[in-house]
């Protein structure tokens, strides 16, 4: 009983305690602001510093450049050659290719598994599927990168007779494995949140379970599925270790899914350790980081907004 004998405490102490807790709570907010400030700060020389601009400008990062006479203008990423070339386009194309393959692989699997789990599975089956998906989500990305590098790459090369062992397809499929849990979890949550009254109405009209889920639950949960896809895409763009290990890391501007690629995230991971502090190359890598931050910030924010709206609508319909 001693534990719950409260001595009266001064108001000052309460006040200080509350303020301290409030201050700690700001850590997340301060953290995200500091992340942006400190990454963007290192890329500022590209916009203002004359010496840096001799080597690299926004123009040169975006548009095709001619580096040698009688050669066509090209997009080339070669920051360490005699004439440093900083075109971001090969990296952009590589990043997009890996993410698109990952989405094409993960979206149908994630959404279909979510439909099965929320609409058809018995309670016991659900209790198996959900932990399995959580386990899949818990695999460290370096392990998936290792698996893609050692096992999947060899399998794909033999199966399709590919020229490059490490390529966009290999990286994209491995990337997809990390995206499946994201899409599954958010889609399944959205479908489970669809009110029972809607299902009952469809059943009363003579629908079988499949018709219930396809004509009632799926349309009502569609924003949730869209949010899952948006958030999954953000993950696919930013994920690092898998693409670093499984993509071949060659900055090639092609549309082929079986060429090697180099993504934004892998470029930072591979080059930052050797770069001279404060050099133009250093600034460009931080600019790439800023781009990744801004892009994932936007996907997260839009995913969040969609989910909040959906929650309000589904709750509103219940009442």
């Amino acid at each position, binding site marked *: 009983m001693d534990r*719950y004998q409260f001595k009266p405490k001064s108001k000052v102490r309460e006040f200080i305690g509350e303020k301290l807790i409030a201050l700690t709570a700001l850590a997340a907010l301060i953290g995200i602001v500091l*992340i942006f400030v400190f990454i963007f700060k290192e890329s500022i020389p590209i916009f203002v510093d004359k010496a840096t601009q001799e080597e690299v400008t926004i123009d040169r990062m975006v548009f095709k450049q001619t580096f040698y006479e009688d050669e066509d203008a090209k997009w080339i990423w070669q920051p360490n050659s005699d004439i440093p070339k900083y075109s971001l386009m090969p990296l952009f194309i590589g990043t997009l290719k890996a993410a698109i393959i990952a989405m094409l692989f993960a979206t149908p699997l994630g959404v*279909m598994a979510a439909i099965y789990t929320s609409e058809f599975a018995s309670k016991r089956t659900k209790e198996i599927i959900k932990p399995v998906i959580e*386990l899949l989500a818990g695999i460290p990305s370096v*392990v998936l*990168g290792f*698996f893609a590098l050692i096992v999947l790459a060899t399998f794909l090369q033999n199966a399709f007779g590919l020229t490059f062992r490490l390529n966009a397809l290999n990286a994209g499929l491995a990337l997809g494995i990390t995206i499946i849990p994201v899409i599954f979890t958010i889609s399944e949550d959205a479908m489970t949140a669809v009110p029972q009254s809607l299902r009952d109405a*469809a059943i009363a009209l003579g629908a079988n379970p499949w018709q219930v889920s396809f004509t009632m639950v799926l349309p009502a949960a569609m924003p949730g599925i869209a949010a899952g896809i948006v958030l999954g895409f953000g993950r696919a763009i930013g994920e690092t270790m898998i693409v670093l290990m499984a993509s071949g890391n060659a900055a090639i501007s092609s549309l082929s899914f079986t060429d090697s690629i180099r993504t934004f995230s892998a470029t930072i991971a591979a080059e930052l350790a050797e770069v001279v502090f404060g050099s133009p190359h250093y600034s460009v890598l931080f600019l790439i980081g800023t781009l990744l931050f801004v892009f994932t910030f936007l996907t997260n924010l839009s995913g969040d907004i969609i989910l909040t709206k959906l929650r309000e609508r589904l709750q*509103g319909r219940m009442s």
Partner: protein
Amino acid sequence: MSAPDRSSQFTTSDLSHQYQFSPKGSDTLPRALMFLAVAIIMAILAVILIDVIIGGIGTISWEFLSSPPEQGMEAGGIFPAIFGTLMLVILMVIAVVPIGVFTAVYLQEYTDPQSKLTRLLRIAINNLAGVPSIVFGLFGLGFFIGFVGGNLDKLFYPESGPVWGQPAVIWASLTMALLTLPVVIVSTEEALRAIPRELKEASYALGATKLQTIFRVILPQAMPGIFTGGILAVGRGAGEVAPIMFTGAAYYLPYLPAKLNDQFMVLGYHTYVMATQSPDVEKTKPILYGTVLVLLMLTFLLNFVAVLLRSKIRTRRISA
């Protein structure tokens, strides 16, 4: 809360067309198709697990776990990497759990959920969870090593070379703490929401202040949830590589880290280095597989414990 938008999807005119169900429609085929997706996902997990277990089980021995790497990582064990991983996650937990718990307490006990500050905080937490891990690595380098460490050196060691302004286990741990902060906050919040209001009222009735109620009634009750959050954070932190590549992880160190500003070896980075930079992949393969198996078992075990703990909390809430 905005008014529910009924008009967009359900109008009486499309009700009659869209919801006329043909009675003969069988649902065997679509149901099998949906199940196929589940089966494929399970098969993917099984293939990865089986490959890693078969490849790694032969390497695991007490010696492998307790001795340092030899001959350029082609022989010997992974003890320094295990030690470094533990050091990293322990320092990380010391930093992230208090901050995460107090953030959750503030959000659940002090603020109005509709207030601007709460909304801003929630946006920050959700977005922090989505920032790519490589961006955390850049941040750790620019902020902790360059700004904090660099200024500490300027203040206290103006004569010598970098003491704090270099990659170190403390900076890697703090970077990882920021990355895992949302995990701890979300888990603690769930536990706080599950505490019955009567408990708090009883505490106030006994004359307790708000602060006393939080520290002596609410937090002890929320312990399992806080514990779950901590374990999930450790599981995440033990496996991430990108945030620590530039902030403290080392290829190889002949000694164990003993000070906060030492570099350290770590299982995930060790895996990456052996898989991509080894001169002879076939020779390092058994050790590589062994390392991956240890890392995978560690993260699975942590996640498994967290799932068990969480389901226990949920059942308790229902029965209460």
